[in-house]
């Protein structure tokens, strides 16, 4: 079969990887898809996907999520995409490509974007069953499958990909080893000091690292599958699975076969326009190309630049690719690793500034030129400053280099704002966007938010590592150009949450509509508000309910319409529309009888059960109409709502404490229960978590909580502002050696002061860092009563405690409220058919494929799919 078409010139792209896809987009942007026939030969069984994020497959990202190919785009631009059909030969004379299926296409321009293949060292046994590489989605699927029957896994290669692969194996439950020939991990990116910091952190995670040894042989058992590895130091490592990650090599075989010039160490030789030096009709881009500066780039950003260059050249525009920055910032196994510029200090006469704390796994090095120019650097363990530092590379930073690498809190540390950057500094290296372009987006294109700037400039839409700096720049630019940055809560209110709290309290306003119509922005009055201010105001009203004369029950009257769906159904919405149920288990203490009740309910309703990170039990997969039935039984057995759904007190965790533990000095369980019962149901700007430990060993992890309590021989120490979660923060000590009564009084004040002054969705940790004066100010207010408001704070808490009632008990006794718990208003007995489950590990999980197809014809119901 020959596919030829009239006189339209044809562009053939071989390889539909990340760079190939970018090339297609660049063609479309330049209008070339309209004037040319575009044919794509794609070897893999799926169109282009995000290889950089490949490992996220193991944390739940599906192959569909990884896809970078919008089929609408392909269709709209008339691109002919042949999936699973690689190019097999090129006849340059005839300008003709033949694919495996027999498809023959004549081209005017041929673009090779064939990427790389993983290098597998030629050791005996390398092809045995159980040996893998790590490059494609198919590789990952195969590893995942094989790992099910394996216990131990080894990765050959301790570079960037090797570490990712080792982390993935560990995530699959295998004991993981990394074997690296070089004397340190990530030999290309970091130096010895950085390698040492990385090694320590990685070993602490339970991975075994063997550096300075090579792999000599893969040992194969009788059945032909891997049983171990022989290493160059004579030792042997038992393993069931081997992943080779010893570097990549350009896929230039197709080019070699048709006589194109390739480099000595591989790579299709191209000029500054990415045109092959041997044939003006052929281009090569991405990892298969040997660029004009003599390098093969193994990162995606330079590949994108090459894609743009080739497309521009084909459109007869001027563009060139002369080399690229090899800066990288990665989060490997949860450790930040970044290197930029001349990281190894190869320039003449350059000097290093190094800060290293191997105990904390921190290593930071800056390479500075004689004249003070920042040339490059390496950051391990904390890459906060990466965005700013990278942008300063090549210039003399406005402050002393030492101050840039010292950790915050070490006295001298300076935060260099992005406003100090020069305009030509590259802020987003994925898309090569300079600070000037970002400023332009704000000043010339009237973008006023980060999402708008992202859309306009593409900055921040790649790896995402620049988004923080981007946000700072946009705000700084808005402020500088005289636009008053609107600090209002949302489009409906020009006040902050704190101001709204004061208005509600002072004027005793107890409905949302009243607040909106009297104090909202002119254009929002009389309207329906929005999804930001409704729950925020709902929460303020709930926090102050007894004091301002509102109902203390969040489903009463208008309050019901303000609550997020979780609060409205008093349960947590899950991805398929079912809910999870978390009864309160104060302090984590639970009697066997109650455990049995939970077990029985879960069994009777077929719920998935799991012990949560908060010392209680979560039951998942309840349909909305089952919630009242489940709760009727829970309430009957003496359970209350655990408020896992609310921005309110969650759990007060405890350790076993003095009663049982040989080290305990106070009764931590009792204190935890007391605190949990006192603050239960307290609605706040964000969720509140707490813990009480019986001694300094801190088994309850109180220092990672919003308010944490640690027993001392003389009483209790109170810590505040701790956080686990996304940006962990150790809590600060607020007061020491408190009696029970003093402790409670101080927490009352602290919580009420936080509720009063925090922003919406601001945990105590961020609040403490933001409010002027920080911890000292908070201590002045709540310990020394510097504002004279402590009486009021205590009274507000008293009112909350006195009026607390269990929401679920109230709900199951109210027929009108109960009638809301149905899937369909017109068919109250019919369950939502999209909520279905399939078995997994003796329990069940949501039928996720059902979500993408919407409905399953009755005959087509998956085996095991339970329509409970």
């Amino acid at each position, binding site marked *: 079969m020959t596919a030829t078409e009239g006189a339209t010139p044809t562009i053939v792209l071989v390889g539909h990887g990340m760079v190939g896809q970018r090339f297609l987009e660049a063609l479309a942007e330049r209008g070339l898809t309209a004037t040319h026939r575009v044919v794509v030969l794609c070897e893999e069984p799926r169109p282009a996907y995000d290889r950089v994020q490949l490992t996220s497959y193991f944390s739940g990202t599906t192959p569909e999520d990884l896809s970078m190919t919008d089929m609408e785009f392909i269709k709209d631009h008339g691109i002919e995409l042949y999936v699973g059909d690689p190019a097999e030969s090129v006849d340059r004379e005839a300008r003709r490509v033949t694919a495996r299926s027999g498809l023959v296409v004549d081209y005017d321009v041929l673009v090779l974007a064939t990427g790389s293949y993983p290098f597998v060292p030629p050791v005996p046994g390398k092809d045995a069953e159980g040996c893998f590489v790590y490059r494609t989605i198919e590789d990952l699927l195969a590893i995942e499958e094989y790992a099910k029957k394996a216990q131990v896994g080894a990765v050959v290669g301790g570079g960037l990909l090797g570490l990712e692969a080792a982390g993935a194996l560990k995530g699959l439950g295998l004991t993981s080893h990394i074997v690296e020939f070089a004397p340190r991990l990530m030999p290309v990116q970091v130096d010895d000091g950085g390698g040492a910091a990385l090694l320590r952190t990685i070993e602490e995670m339970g991975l075994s690292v063997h550096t300075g040894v090579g792999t000599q042989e893969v040992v194969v058992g009788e059945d032909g599958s891997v049983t171990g590895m022989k290493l160059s130091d004579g030792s042997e490592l038992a393993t069931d699975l081997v992943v080779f990650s010893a570097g990549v090599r350009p896929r230039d075989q197709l080019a070699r076969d048709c006589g194109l010039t390739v480099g000595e160490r591989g790579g299709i030789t191209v000029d500054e326009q990415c045109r092959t030096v041997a044939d003006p009709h052929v281009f090569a881009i991405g990892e298969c190309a040997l660029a004009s500066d003599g390098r093969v780039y193994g990162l995606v950003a330079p590949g994108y630049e090459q894609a743009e260059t080739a497309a521009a050249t084909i459109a007869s525009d001027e563009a060139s690719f002369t080399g690229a920055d090899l800066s990288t910032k990665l989060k490997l196994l949860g450790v930040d690793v970044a290197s930029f510029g001349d990281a190894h200090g190869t320039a003449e006469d350059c000097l290093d500034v190094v800060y290293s704390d191997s105990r904390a796994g921190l290593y930071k090095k800056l390479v500075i030129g004689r004249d003070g120019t920042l040339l490059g650097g390496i950051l391990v363990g904390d890459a906060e400053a990466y965005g700013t530092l990278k942008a300063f590379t090549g210039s003399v930073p406005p402050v002393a280099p030492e101050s840039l690498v010292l950790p915050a809190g070490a006295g001298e540390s300076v935060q260099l704002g992005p406003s100090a950057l020069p305009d030509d500094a590259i802020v987003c290296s994925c898309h090569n966007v300079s600070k000037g372009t970002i400023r332009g987006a704000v000043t010339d294109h009237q973008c006023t938010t980060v999402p708008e700037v992202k859309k306009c400039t593409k900055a921040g839409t790649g790896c995402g590592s620049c988004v923080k700096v981007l946000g700072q720049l946009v705000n700084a630019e808005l402020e500088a150009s005289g636009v008053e940055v609107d600090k209002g809560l949302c489009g409906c209110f020009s006040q902050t949450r704190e101001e709204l709290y004061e208005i509600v309290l002072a004027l005793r306003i107890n409905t949302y509509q009243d607040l909106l119509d009297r104090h909202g922005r002119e254009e929002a009055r009389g309207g329906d508000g929005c999804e930001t201010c409704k729950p925020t105001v709902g929460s303020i009203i709930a926090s102050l309910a007894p004091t301002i004369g509102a109902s203390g029950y969040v489903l009463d009257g208008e309050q019901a319409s303000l609550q997020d769906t979780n609060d409205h159904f008093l349960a947590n919405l899950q991805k398929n529309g079912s809910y999870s149920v978390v009864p309160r288990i104060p302090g984590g203490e639970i009697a066997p009888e109650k455990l049995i009740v939970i077990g029985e309910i879960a069994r009777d309703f077929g719920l998935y059960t799991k012990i949560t990170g908060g010392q209680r039990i979560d039951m998942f997969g309840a349909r909305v109409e089952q919630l009242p039935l489940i709760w009727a039984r829970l309430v009957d057995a003496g359970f209350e709502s655990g408020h896992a759904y609310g921005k309110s007190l969650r759990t007060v965790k405890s350790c076993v404490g003095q009663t049982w533990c040989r080290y305990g000095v106070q009764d931590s369980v009792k204190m935890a229960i007391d605190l949990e019962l006192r603050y239960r149901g307290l609605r706040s700007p964000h969720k509140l978590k707490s813990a009480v430990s019986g001694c300094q060993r801190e088994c309850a992890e109180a220092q990672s909580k919003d308010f944490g309590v640690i027993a001392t021989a003389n009483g209790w120490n109170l810590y505040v502002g701790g956080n686990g979660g996304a940006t962990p923060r150790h809590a600060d000590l607020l007061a020491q050696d408190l009696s029970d009564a003093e402790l409670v009084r101080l927490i009352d004040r602290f919580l009420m002061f936080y509720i009063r002054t925090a922003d919406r969705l601001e945990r105590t940790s961020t609040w403490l860092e933001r409010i002027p004066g920080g911890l000292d100010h908070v201590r002045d207010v709540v310990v020394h009563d510097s504002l004279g408001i402590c009486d009021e704070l205590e009274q507000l808490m008293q009112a909350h405690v006195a009026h607390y009632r269990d929401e679920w008990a109230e709900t199951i006794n109210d027929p009108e409220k109960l009638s809301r718990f149905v899937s369909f208003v017109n068919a109250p007995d019919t369950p939502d*058919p999209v909520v279905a489950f399939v078995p997994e590990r003796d329990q069940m999980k949501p039928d996720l494929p059902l*979500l993408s197809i919407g409905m399953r014809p009755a005959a087509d119901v998956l085996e095991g799919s339970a329509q409970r």
Partner: protein
Amino acid sequence: MTLAPETTDLKIELALDGDWFTVCDLSTLLPGRGVAALLPDGRQAAIFRDRCGDLFAIDNRDPFTGAAVLSRGLTGTHRGRPFVASPLLKQRFDLTSGECLDDETVRVTAYQVRIA
């Protein structure tokens, strides 16, 4: 349109293939919240009532996640357009046209509703 509170016998109806399909009593709808209705062909509609008493209906299925949950989202007004925000990933949908306000390439079906 303002309605007297005791209009319980008033019904909400949805336009389906040129016919009117009765969903529920008007009084079951809380202003500012939605309900879901099962349609004869197995699809689901989300019906909302705003504070002025105006009614809206769109498809109940959240196109971003596939779950049938739009009826459980929070409603509001954006530049005069009534919308609901999906309770899962918070994308907003115009209640009159079904258009997604955060991604103009996405749209859900909008239905005509009336009170009878």
